[in-house]
């Protein structure tokens, strides 16, 4: 059961977080815990994950109590498991500047008996606005990403990043961040040869001294989705906190994060995996983004069905090497029937039925292109999937995809869970 309250200016930050997460996905998990209230979202092709944790001190008051279910063997503490549609919650936090002016207090609480989140605004002139938002019960997804283990870390003021971002048009899908110990360059990236003759190519070089923290361990160029970067940027401008960018080599996910006393935000984005045979010229033949993403999903799922190694389909894909740090739905076990749906969150209806929701991108195209110039996004999440609550009763918070792999990793690695 969640009960928390915040002031008008805190509502603005909270609303900005929701707006930033709406750039990633149409769904939002509300995940309260003792650590604070977490908002999570994952995009449909699993190439971007957003997580914002508001610590209890962010709120004017914060109360979280778990409902303890006692059964025969042990007691289970359960998450709220609340998934909201962005369409329901985003309009509530529209016009943030007017909310900041008019709202004196905002209360958010859940009712354990009904699947509802209640958001109440106590505004000026005695006006009280109440929103009842129904949620679906769904276990939130989590991602394991060790950002402190990345070779490259940059910390930059949001203003500098904003000045770089204006270079690109809103239709720009991807941007490339190229770093060397001497300079950082943000440039437009295009994989369609057609695009190049029509669109403007832009780049900006920023010197190391513009960063609050500059550590480049390995020269690299990573390409990621621009929309998600903009989402994180608008949020960081609201919090006035610097953004940390953690990344490694192409193919390995990158993290954009904000770490503040009051909140912690992490956007984990997939980066384009580099093919070793691919020339660095932007005009090499490549497939369109969406097809690549769905292809990757398919190939991983195809592999899972046949038990083949991922690298047989994606030679340049770095995923396998970094596997111990990331859980992958298709690694070893092919006998678990839910494996092919591992990437999807399992939604539990209130009446206890369990139905697996297959990812639309998975079912889409079955073809895996044979072109050697294929660039694929590496997908690094998957979810907190449990076909049976009992399996995970001793890991109430760290619900991870593959039972055996995950438990070993959890015990061994120092990886952090968001």
């Amino acid at each position: 059961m969640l009960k928390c309250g915040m002031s008008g200016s805190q509502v603005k930050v909270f609303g900005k977080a929701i707006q930033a997460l709406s750039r990633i996905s149409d769904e939002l998990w509300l995940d309260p815990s003792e650590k604070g209230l977490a908002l999570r979202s994952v995009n449909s092709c699993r190439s971007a994950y957003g997580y914002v944790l508001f610590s209890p001190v962010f709120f004017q008051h914060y109360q979280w109590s778990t409902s303890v279910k006692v059964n025969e063997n042990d007691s289970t503490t359960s998450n709220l498991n609340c998934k909201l549609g962005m369409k329901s919650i985003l309009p509530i936090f529209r016009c943030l500047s007017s909310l900041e002016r008019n709202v004196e207090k905002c209360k958010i609480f859940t009712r354990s008996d009904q699947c509802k989140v209640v958001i109440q605004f106590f505004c000026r002139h005695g006006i009280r606005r109440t929103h009842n938002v129904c949620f679906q019960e769904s276990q939130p997804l989590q991602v394991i990403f060790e950002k402190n283990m990345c070779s490259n870390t940059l910390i930059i003021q949001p203003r500098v990043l904003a000045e770089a971002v204006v270079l690109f048009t809103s239709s720009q899908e991807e941007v490339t961040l190229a770093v060397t110990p001497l300079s950082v360059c943000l440039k437009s990236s295009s994989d369609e040869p057609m695009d190049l003759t029509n669109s403007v190519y832009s780049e900006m070089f920023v010197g190391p001294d513009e960063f609050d923290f500059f550590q480049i361990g390995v020269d690299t160029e990573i390409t990621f989705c621009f929309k998600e970067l903009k989402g994180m940027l608008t949020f960081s401008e609201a919090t006035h906190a610097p953004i940390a960018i953690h990344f490694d080599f192409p193919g390995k996910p990158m993290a954009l994060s904000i770490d503040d006393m009051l909140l912690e935000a992490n956007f984990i984005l997939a980066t384009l995996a580099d093919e070793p045979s691919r020339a660095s010229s932007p005009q090499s033949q490549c497939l369109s983004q969406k097809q690549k993403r769905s292809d990757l999903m398919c190939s991983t799922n195809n592999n899972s069905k046949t038990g083949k190694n991922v690298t047989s389909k994606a030679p340049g894909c770095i995923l396998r090497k970094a596997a111990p740090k990331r859980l992958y739905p298709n690694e070893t076990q092919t006998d678990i029937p839910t494996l092919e749906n591992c990437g999807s969150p399992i939604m539990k209806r209130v009446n206890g039925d369990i139905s697996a929701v297959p990812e639309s991108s998975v079912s889409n195209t079955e073809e895996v292109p044979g072109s050697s110039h294929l660039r694929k996004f590496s997908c690094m999440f998957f979810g907190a999937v449990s076909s049976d609550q009992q399996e995970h009763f001793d890991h109430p918070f760290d619900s991870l995809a593959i039972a055996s792999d995950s438990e070993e990793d959890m015990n061994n690695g120092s990886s952090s869970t968001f």
Partner: protein
Amino acid sequence: MKFRAKIVDAACLNHFTRVSAMIAKLAKTCTLRISPQKLNFILSDKVANGGVSMWCELEQENFFSEFQMEGVSAENNAIYLELTSENLSRALKTAQNARALKIKLTNKHFPCLTVSIELLSVSSSSRIVTHDIPVKVIPRRLWKDLQEPTVPDSDVSIYLPVLKTMKSIVEKMKNISNYLIIEANLNGELNLKIETELVCVTTHFKDLGNPPLASEDASQDRDPEQMAEVHIDIRKLLQFLAGQQVNPTKAVCNIVTNKIVHFDLLHEDVSLQYFIPAFS
């Protein structure tokens, strides 16, 4: 073919950015003509443009501290490039606090106008921003269509009222009719008229003043009260007015009855001519 130019003065850069923004509003695609003394933004009167044509001219030495160009050949010392106006405008807008801006014609797998900006930043190091704007080089055989239009002998020449006022009026009129009648006389009166089955709306502007006429004969023949009128597509007029963000230094409207309306503007040192034909 070579072209390189540099702007270091902030005021020149802002002015050039404004000109480019205006062109972007007037024409989606236009021709940039580079010659030793001038730069021109040209829209030729093709059917595709609806018969509208534009000729914008600026003296390069009013803007650029350095300017070097080499045309196609010695006799044809000009470069004609076709580009998407908005691309140039957007690139220039990112040069807000630039220390220097360089434009040059490059060939990066295909011809580009490369805009390279050195930005001032809070810290000691400066930021370098580069934009490669794809362009198409227009071959010499097509140059004849892109020459300076001849100014027609107009029946009436009149100074325009404040363009912002004109624009808000035309905007409202657009909701009622697609066609507008613009008429003026030598007595400083200009009318904007729309006529539909149900309603006629006319806005009258008075005391606008008329520029001195070129030939004395014409002024004696014509009755100062007599209106010269042209029926034009209201959207074309609106597009022209929308491009004028700043009120020009000088604005003249020349009307050739039932043929064409010619707007002759001067924004500080940049001249803009815009022709809207009568709709047939």
